[in-house]
């Protein structure tokens, strides 16, 4: 599905990287543990997390994951948004909890991005 559809399904606010919205995405990885994202996530997947700090952006960037969705109404700081813009990362925020986000996206065809 397109990232714009992800935004619509999750009723998410786009904070940076709007140019990615017309790109396709096929899988997602939901996790608050960045160590596990670095170990187990496939590239080009959406990262869904309730953890909000700069290292989330670094993790996504290093793992070639260009879209990040902050769940549970978590909002990154302006500094983080600026950092995401500089790195051309799509960042969104949604009111849904992680479980709901994963359920909504999975039932609409997105797969788990497990590296195996």
């Amino acid at each position: 599905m397109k990232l714009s559809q992800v935004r619509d399904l999750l009723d998410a606010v786009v904070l940076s990287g709007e140019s990615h919205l017309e790109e396709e995405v096929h899988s997602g990885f939901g996790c608050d543990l960045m160590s596990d994202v670095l170990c187990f996530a496939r590239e080009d997947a959406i990262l869904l997390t309730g953890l909000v700090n700069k290292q989330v952006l670094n993790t996504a960037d290093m793992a070639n994951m260009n879209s990040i969705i902050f769940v549970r109404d978590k909002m990154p700081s302006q500094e983080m948004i600026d950092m995401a813009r500089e790195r051309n990362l799509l960042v969104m925020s949604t009111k849904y909890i992680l479980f709901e986000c994963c359920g909504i996206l999975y039932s609409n065809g997105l797969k788990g991005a497990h590296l195996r």
Partner: protein
Amino acid sequence: MSYELVFDVKRGDFDTAGEASRKIKRTLQQLGVANKVIRKVSIAGYEGEMNLAIHSSGGRIVLQVGEEELVLTIEDVGPGIANIDLAMTAGWSTAGDEVRQMGFGAGMGLPNMKNNADSFEISSKIGEGTKIVMKFFV
């Protein structure tokens, strides 16, 4: 070796941790290295950079770019690892709560570095420091 990049990493500086890995990734992209290799170097480098910020008394990351391989050396000035086998065990970590709240300290860093590198060597001496040398075939 035709090219070398050197970055110093300070202990506990989580505001700038990740900068060295970002610069390494961008450099490799500019050099036209294959995406698959860049991802491995980026992840291993970032794990190493976070380890320096979390565990070491300060250290240095050196990337040497050769025609056939990339060599990533991560070296610190202490405190050293008492039991390397234990440190290499997935899930084992001495990281504190602050680090865990940041999403790290799960004890996956060293094993993940080894998994991503084509060769991995680690040596350590208590009171002196730890040195990790990783090679990635281009």
